[in-house]
C-alpha cells in the first residue's frame, strides 16, 4: 500500500482541486481532500481531519495556512501512539508539495521519503 496524502484547506474547492491535480500524476495513491468547515464555509474542520487520519494508513498531511496546521497538529495530538507513528505533517507549500509527494508515493516511497519529497518542493518544475 502506498503512502496516502491528506490535503487540509480552508476551502473545499481548493482541497479537491489539489487532489485532482496530484491524482493525475499518481493514479494509485489515495488522496484525501479535507476542505472547509462542517457547514461548508471557509475554515477547517477538526472532525473531518480526524476522520481522514483515522481512515488512512501511512499518510502525509499538507495544509494551506497556519490555522489549518494548528488544526492538524491538534488532531495528531489526540491520536494514540500507534496512529501517530503513521502520520507526518509536512512543512511545505500546499500545491507544489502535494504534487511532489504524490509522485513519490506513486513510486512506492516510504512515509519519510514522501514527506521529504513534499518538503523539498519549491517552485513549479
Amino acid at each position, binding site marked *: 500500500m502506498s503512502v496516502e496524502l491528506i490535503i487540509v484547506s480552508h476551502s473545499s474547492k481548493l482541497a479537491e482541486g489539489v487532489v485532482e491535480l496530484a491524482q493525475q500524476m499518481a493514479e494509485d495513491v489515495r488522496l484525501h481532500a479535507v476542505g472547509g*468547515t*462542517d457547514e461548508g*464555509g*471557509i*475554515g*477547517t*474542520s*477538526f*472532525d473531518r481531519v480526524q476522520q481522514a487520519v483515522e481512515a488512512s494508513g501511512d499518510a502525509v498531511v499538507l495544509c494551506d*495556512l*497556519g*490555522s489549518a496546521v*494548528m*488544526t492538524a*497538529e*491538534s488532531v495528531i*495530538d489526540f491520536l494514540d501512539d500507534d496512529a501517530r507513528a503513521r502520520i507526518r505533517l509536512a512543512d511545505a507549500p500546499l500545491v507544489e508539495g502535494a504534487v511532489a509527494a504524490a509522485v513519490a508515493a506513486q513510486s512506492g516511497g516510504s512515509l519519510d521519503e514522501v514527506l521529504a519529497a513534499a518538503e523539498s518542493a519549491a517552485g513549479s518544475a
Partner: protein
Amino acid sequence: MAGVLDTAATVSWIRAIGAVIAEQEQHLTTLDRTIGDGDHGANMRRGFAAVTEKLDGEFADPEEVLKTVATTLISTVGGASGPLYGTAFLKGSMAVKGRAELDGAGVAAFIRGAADGVKARGKAEAGDKTMVDAWLPAAEAAEAAAADGADAQAVLSAAAAAARKGAEETEPIVARKGRASYLGERAIGHRDPGAESTAFILGAAE
C-alpha cells in the same frame, strides 16, 4: 463568584463567557476584519454557542467541564482560535485534574496550563501580537495573586486585568504569527482580535 470554583461555579463561569462573547461578536469581527479575515467574532460565537448547549449535562468536577469546553471549541470554531482555545482549555483542565473545586491556586494552575498550551500550539512568543500576549501576563498575574493567598475570584480578576492590558499592548506592534503577520508594518495601531477575546474570556466572571 465564590471564593472557590466548584463544578457548578465553573459551569456558571463558562455560561458567562458565552454571554460576553455573543455580546462582543461584532467588536471581535471588526478587529479581525482590520488585520485578519473578519471571522473571529462569528468563530467565537459559534464555538461558545455549541459549548453553552453542552452545559446542561452532568459533570463530575471542574476538569470535566473544562475538557468539554476544549473538545467542543476544537470541533466547532473552524478558525485558528479553535485549536488554540481548544488546547488552552484542554491543557488548563489537565492542570486541575482530580480537584473537586478550584481555589486561588487551582485557578492559577488552570490559567498557566492554558497559557502554556496556547504558546506551544501556536509556536508563538510574547510580543508576536497574538492571544499569547494576553494569556502569558494573565498566567503571571494569576500566580502572583495566588501566591499572595487570593481566592478563586480574586485570582481570576487579577488575570483578567493583566489580559486586558496585554491585549491593549498588542496595538503598537507588528505580528509575527497568524494572519496579521502578512500585513507587516500595516498591522501597527490595531489590536489583536484573539488577545481581545482572551481578555473577555478571563473577564467574564466579573
